[in-house]
């Protein structure tokens, strides 16, 4: 089975995440890491690989030079090869453009399964997976908390899984090839071991620039984006509140505060 897993480098959620007021884009100068959900997506891909002998996992990212670390980390976990889509011409891409570039890189490579995170921690659009299913013309099984792939002997395989919804979950089934997005419940990501880290350095990473992808010239780059950010305003920090130590009456005091604030 040929599996692609899509990983994204994001500002570390533990850090101070900022939007640069001058470019109106996410400030990536601070700590950046592979998005936690994508480590889980890699784990899901490796579990499918382990259950289907002869499988191969390609990790794909679109991002600046530093995003190579996200690929290396995935390779250290056990992925087999990488694809790094990198070009200054992609700076400032919106989701429509990002999905176009990713689809162009994936297209024609005959992946049976593409696995992504359900939503990124910086964009949180949850749009790229659905857009990719649309662009690639494959079945969409998204927001999965469980994933089972059966390769099928001589015939097309199937994918099943539980899709998380606000009210519970639904069970999904489709034929391969398919696009899957996973939620954080899918699996705990394994830690790369020493051997994995060493071998990751030798695994092949293909670099794709704008010119390597067949994308219409007038569609790429911030100047041609479908969505245009007009204005960014930082929310003022919350001003300090009243903090009390419980002296045996704190419960009553909270009720008094609620009443005084007309909240009860």
């Amino acid at each position, binding site marked *: 089975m040929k599996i692609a897993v899509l990983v994204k480098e994001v500002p570390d959620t533990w850090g101070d995440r900022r939007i640069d007021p001058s470019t109106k884009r996410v400030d990536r100068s601070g700590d950046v890491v592979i998005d936690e959900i994508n480590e889980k997506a890699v784990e899901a891909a490796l579990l499918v690989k382990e259950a289907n002998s002869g499988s191969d996992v390609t990790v794909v990212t679109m991002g600046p030079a530093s995003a190579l670390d996200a690929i290396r980390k995935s390779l250290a976990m056990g992925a087999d090869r990488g694809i790094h889509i990198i070009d200054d011409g992609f700076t400032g891409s919106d989701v429509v453009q990002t999905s176009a570039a990713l689809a162009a890189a994936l297209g024609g490579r005959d992946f049976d399964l593409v696995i992504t995170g359900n939503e990124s921690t910086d964009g949180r659009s949850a749009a790229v997976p659905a857009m990719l299913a649309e662009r690639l013309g494959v079945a969409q099984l998204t927001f999965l908390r469980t994933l089972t792939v059966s390769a099928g002997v001589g015939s097309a395989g199937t994918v099943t899984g539980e899709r998380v919804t*606000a009210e519970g979950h639904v069970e999904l089934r489709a034929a391969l090839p398919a696009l899957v997005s996973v939620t954080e419940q899918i699996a705990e990501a394994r830690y790369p071991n020493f051997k994995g880290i060493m071998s990751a350095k030798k695994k092949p990473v293909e670099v794709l620039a704008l010119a390597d992808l067949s994308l219409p010239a007038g569609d790429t780059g911030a100047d041609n984006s479908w969505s245009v950010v007009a204005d960014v305003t930082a929310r003022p920090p919350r001003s300090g509140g009243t903090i009390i130590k419980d002296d045996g009456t704190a419960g009553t005091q909270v009720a008094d505060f609620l009443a005084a604030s007309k909240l009860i």
Partner: protein
Amino acid sequence: MTQVLVLVELVDGALDSSTPELLAAAAQLGEPAAVVVVEPAAALAAELGAELGALGAGIVFVASREGAGSQLVTPQVAALEAAVAASGDVSAVIVSNSTDGREAGARLAIRIDGAYQSDAVGIAAADGGIVVTQQAFGGSYTVTAGTGRGIPVISLRPHSIEGAAPAAAGTVREIDISGDTAVTTEITARHEQTQVSERPSLQTADIVVSGGRGLGSKEKFELVEQLADSLGAAVGASRAAVDAGYCDHNMQVGQTGVTVSPNLYIALGISGAIQHRAGMQSAKTIIAINRDADSPIFEVADFGVVGDLFTVVPQLIDAVNARRG
């Protein structure tokens, strides 16, 4: 006036609770038109026309497809695409920021070569077109965005628009999606509870009471529910509480859970890690009860109690009940 299409989701044949708000948002931009997919057997087109007309839809585009109820989002994408073509003059498409809505919207944007703007908390018509307001990094930033090209497809966060659309004709127009060739995913079973609980839903509640790892066990987590019920609130949780199995995953508030901005948020036994705060820091008033005075949750609390939640909360419940009489 140009039309603004709204994707109407059906739950067991009834309109999803997001519907009035979506039509109200559409009415602020143009003439609302509803788009809905039904099973042929349901034959409720006339009824839907009346219901959606009362909520503001001038036209109700109805697509019927056998088995649509067990196909994931692709029938909705096809119906929206067909409605855009049938209307001929669409200035925007609005979907709910639900799991299904946002994905149908994202796919539609690709199909009609439109823009996609996710999780809008505000939508307005401006000189240059339609401008959406979004929040970034858990409400740390407010972003406004317009459309560079194409029809904007906008997913709207529930509970962000006030008011209702004036009633309109609700004229039913059938649209044909039989030519749709998208590869389908089959929904083989549903395990969903639609509003069995008396409690308000997490995303739209005025008051949210959340519990964290400090609750200690699934049994003791009931204290969170008791306080919530005395206040008529929804119940939320931290990821640590969810991971420990105290409550269901769809109650998780935060970076990778639900974003809430209620009038009142009460955090019980939650340390207030940055990823939790990303989901609740835009609440109007925040109350925190935690025995560790150094917990970061106190940095965002309007009123904080350093104390044991197992003594403070029962007293609070009694005091609330006493005031309520």
